[in-house]
């Protein structure tokens, strides 16, 4: 597959994502209307349509407010801004994406937004403190690779659409089972929405895995190597990320796939048991290994331990 085919496939997938989002809510609306009557189908479908419309144009801003990514100037973070500038030049982007920083000690980075013109690159303050210039440039080039490959719109749309499913599921469950305590038995409509959502939310989360294959991350790693000409720099950066075990404060399942490394680390219990099944990212070891093969080098520390 060439870059053009990758771009086209991302565009088609974005359209399909919106379509299936719409269908899910039309289905919910129809179910509620069938049980309860009234004009629920049109109401729910309209709300979903408006939300999808907003998502298409403002997904970058929505994600920024969820993750706490604030725009920064070159004066504040000269190294980061320069890294983004250089990677954009190396990738041949017509325009340098906006640069944002998330104040969080956990090292991570992501790209979000729509077209390359409206996309932005965000890094956590933890990442800036941990990486040297070469590693930072490699990580930033990975994100710029997502922008160039037109992954960002699809990834961002997935985040905001899946995010709202999770949110609605959460709210309706609470209202259905706990909020309705004043009235006996709870509200049947909310109950139905809640149950449907309860079923839907994990399916939607699984949908992320389906629509955003882990190949995308390998691809962005390769793009980074192409942009910087330095696969070793990225391998070292990934190695550092692997050693780190802090968890991002604002990360959740909806936005997890946006980051360069999975932000939901080392949690015990159910989430950890499910992490292999629902992993949004390939293991850092295999990514490092793939970079080692590509660049014909070997990191001093054995990657698989």
């Amino acid at each position: 597959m060439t870059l053009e085919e990758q771009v086209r496939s991302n565009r088609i997938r974005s359209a399909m994502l919106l379509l299936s989002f719409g269908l899910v809510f039309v289905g919910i609306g129809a179910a509620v209307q069938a049980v309860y009557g009234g004009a629920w189908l049109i109401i729910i479908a309209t709300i979903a349509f408006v939300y999808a419309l907003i998502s298409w144009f403002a997904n970058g801003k929505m994600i920024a407010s969820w993750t706490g990514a604030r725009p920064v100037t070159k004066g504040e973070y000269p190294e980061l801004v320069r890294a983004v500038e250089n990677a954009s030049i190396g990738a041949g982007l017509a325009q340098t994406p906006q640069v944002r920083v998330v104040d969080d000690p956990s090292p991570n980075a992501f790209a979000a937004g729509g077209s390359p013109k409206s996309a932005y690159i965000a890094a956590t303050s933890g990442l800036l403190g941990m990486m040297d210039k070469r590693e930072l440039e490699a990580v930033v080039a990975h994100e710029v690779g997502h922008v160039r490959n037109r992954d960002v719109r699809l990834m961002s749309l997935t985040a905001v659409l899946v995010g709202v499913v999770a949110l609605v599921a959460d709210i309706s469950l609470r209202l259905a089972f706990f909020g309705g305590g004043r009235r006996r038995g709870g509200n049947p409509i909310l109950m139905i929405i809640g149950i449907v959502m309860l079923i839907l939310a994990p399916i939607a989360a699984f949908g992320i895995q389906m629509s955003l294959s882990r190949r995308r991350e390998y691809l962005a790693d390769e793009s980074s190597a192409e942009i910087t000409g330095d696969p070793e720099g990225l391998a070292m950066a990934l190695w550092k990320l692997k050693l780190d075990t802090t968890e991002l404060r604002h990360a959740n399942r909806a936005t997890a796939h946006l980051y360069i490394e999975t932000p939901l680390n080392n949690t015990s219990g159910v989430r950890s048991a499910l992490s292999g099944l629902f992993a949004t990212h390939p293991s850092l070891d295999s990514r490092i290994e793939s970079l080692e093969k590509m660049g014909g080098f070997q990191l001093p520390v054995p990657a698989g331990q």
Partner: protein
Amino acid sequence: MRGGEPASTGGAKTNPARPPPRIIAGIVIFIYVIAGVVVLIAIWIVLIFNHLIRLGNEAKRGWSNIDVQLKRRTDLIPNLVEAVKGYAAHERQVFEEVTAARTAMQQASGPAQAGEANKQATAAIGRLFAVSEAYPALRASENFQKLQDELTDTEDKIAAARRYYNQTVYQYNTRIQSFPDLIVAKLGGFHEREFFALDSPAEAALPNVDFSGGGAPAK
């Protein structure tokens, strides 16, 4: 390539002077086929032409990225020379080298020449920085630090722009040298583009990203 022409109207009986309708129908079909092939070839040529134009534009944009940084570099050099002169006026030889390199950069026409001049400038500026190591007061000066920082940044940006430019030129040149596109390129007046500061053509082709592999890295 339509075959639905009326072939049996009985016209042959009423007018024996005209060729039988089967032959007319045959000719009509033949004309349709020829027209269809011509249209297909025309579409194919237009597609290739557009592709080459796009690749060429990408190379142009890549070059303008380099050009912007080269200009920035030539603008910074006099400031740097001035800054160093204030502390180390007698290091005349290095100043001359840097100035000569700058002139070469300004006079260079085309990516290949500019690449050579840029290499020369990198070496000269490197020597100037090496010389300035001996002057702690100079190194402590804020102006000098800022210039050094800016020049390092331009150098990084030239390196990044160079990688992208050479990759696009490699793609473009390969396309217009290989068979079907070759014809369109000749007819459309597409010419090969020069690389910028490239040691070997193979350098531009690597690393090759394989978009189909599941993380299986290309060479």
